[in-house]
């Protein structure tokens, strides 16, 4: 599948100008509130007509203002999961799910039971939306969009209105969705943990412009994008494979190119491909192999790049090359000076196992 987008739209003093193409898999539209993300997905869905647009999916043109083409939303075959679920309050869950399927009018029958099982909503079918929890509503909304047989699924911050526990309840379903259905997904988010866990490709949006497009690993490793990805959560993402469980101590061991990383026990099968995000602020640097430390993970590497967090800030961001993997560390300027950190210098990165919690780990998919 290929989704190609070229949009320009001015509204209320804000100019959105975005041009990018989506690869198969899950593409995250990442950016802060007000970056233009929702405007962009509304334009893709056809709920908003931009001043200038060319949008095509698999060669099928949905909008081309130059040639007067503007396919109405109900003919675009684009599923949309809204932040606020938007279930029809007068219909049962079952009828909400069947609503889109009724209008899809396709020969191939979609397996209602399969979608219901995939999302774990079988026991909700007779209920009305008003009686559902936020997480349940969102799962039903996802099912309703899927059953309308879309060629593309848009998800506009589907987890933003949920608390932490509900987020954790839904994330595994989203991973299954991405991995089991061959359906391209455009996922809007301003939360790095979600993006790390779900995205194959990231489109970084800021002030209505596309700042960068690339894989999660590439984008999170770039120091110049730190101001956009959010300094507090900033950190490099490594690809890892689950190789061992340590039952006695309740730990799991992940293999990365940088070395083995111990994390709190994961309920996943051995061999599972995972992503692990190591926040820069959780990394400590040492010049010699540390002994007598509680940190279980010690990764050797060399300094590749140093950059002050901002002009005159007391911290510096340090990019390390650990056997081809990137690890980012945030240390004080004072420490950097005492250790005499400079590109090419061998160092050891120490990471506490307990810093690598559920929010840092996710299935990698394909």
């Amino acid at each position: 599948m290929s989704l190609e987008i070229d949009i320009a739209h001015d509204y209320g003093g804000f100019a959105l100008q975005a041009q990018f193409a989506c690869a198969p898999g899950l593409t995250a539209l990442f950016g802060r509130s007000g970056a233009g993300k929702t405007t962009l997905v509304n334009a893709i869905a056809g709920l908003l007509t931009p001043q200038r647009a060319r949008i095509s999916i698999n060669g099928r043109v949905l909008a081309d203002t130059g040639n007067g083409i503007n396919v109405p939303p109900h003919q675009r075959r684009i599923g949309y999961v809204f932040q606020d679920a938007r279930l029809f309050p007068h219909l049962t869950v079952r009828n909400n799910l069947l609503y889109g399927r009724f209008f899809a009018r396709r020969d191939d029958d979609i397996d209602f039971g399969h979608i219901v099982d995939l999302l774990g909503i079988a026991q909700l079918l007779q209920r009305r939306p008003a009686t559902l929890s936020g997480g349940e509503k969102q799962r039903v909304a996802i099912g309703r969009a899927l059953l309308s047989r879309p060629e593309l699924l848009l998800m506009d911050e589907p987890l933003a209105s949920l608390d932490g526990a509900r987020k954790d309840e839904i994330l595994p379903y989203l991973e299954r969705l991405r991995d089991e259905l061959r359906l391209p997904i455009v996922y809007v988010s301003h939360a790095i943990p979600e993006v790390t866990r779900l995205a194959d490709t990231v489109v970084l949006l800021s002030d209505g412009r596309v700042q960068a497009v690339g894989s999660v690993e590439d984008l999170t490793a770039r120091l110049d994008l730190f101001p956009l990805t959010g300094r507090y959560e900033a950190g490099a993402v490594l690809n890892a494979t689950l190789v061992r469980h340590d039952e006695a101590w309740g730990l799991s061991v992940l293999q990365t190119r940088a070395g083995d990383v111990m994390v709190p026990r994961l309920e996943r099968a051995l061999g599972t491909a995972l992503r692990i995000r190591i926040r820069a602020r959780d990394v400590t640097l040492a010049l010699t192999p540390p002994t007598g430390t509680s940190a279980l993970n010690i990764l050797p590497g060399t300094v590749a790049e140093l950059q002050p967090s901002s002009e005159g800030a007391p911290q510096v961001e340090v990019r390390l090359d650990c056997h081809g993997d990137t690890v980012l560390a945030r240390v004080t300027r004072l420490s950097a000076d005492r250790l005499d950190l400079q590109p090419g210098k061998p160092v050891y990165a120490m990471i506490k196992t307990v810093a690598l919690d559920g929010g840092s780990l996710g299935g990698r998919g394909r």
Partner: protein
Amino acid sequence: MLSLTPEETTAILLSLKVASVATLGSLPFGVLIAWLLARKTFPGKALLDALVHLPLIIPPVVTGYLLLLLFGKRGPLGSWLAEIGIVFAFRWTGAALACAVMGFPLLVRAIRLSMEAVDPRLEAAGRTLGAHPALVFLTVTLPLSLPGILAGVVLSFARAFGEFGATVTFVSNIPGETQTLPTAIYTFTQVPGGDAQALRLTLISIAIAAVAILLSELLARRSARRVLG
């Protein structure tokens, strides 16, 4: 006391017929106008809004007289409609038309308010699920406005059932053809010894109104439960 004369029975049945036809006949137009006012912007919207509300403000006699001028045998619309066999003047159909016009503002107001309360984002969701806007209207907007539609129907019916001024001006007070409950009561109060009959019809009209209100409350509660879950 409770045995009705044929004349009284006729008036009651005629009133029910006139009010029912007036309400059901104006309902599709009411829904259309309410939707236009609730969801669309177009030139002359304020004018349409004012026109719909006019019968609520001007004296009923004036409305009846205007109807007579327009739909009378020699009126511009009346003479044209007479050619295709539709006659309003001095017929029960004319009474129904007068009642429909008088009840229309109440019908439109109630439906419009409930349509405005329907979240347009739900309609947008319907469109992304592949439903044509007309089908979104039928499957989302209309069912969610049902409490307002029911309220409008009841108000309009009640207004039609009690309509006097416009009816008597437009189609007069002909027993068996245009003599509805209110005009019959009025007639009985004008003849010596008609007090008992007037009182009897008054009690009956109160009873019918009470049943209508109870029924509408019941329906409104059920539909609200359905809509709000």
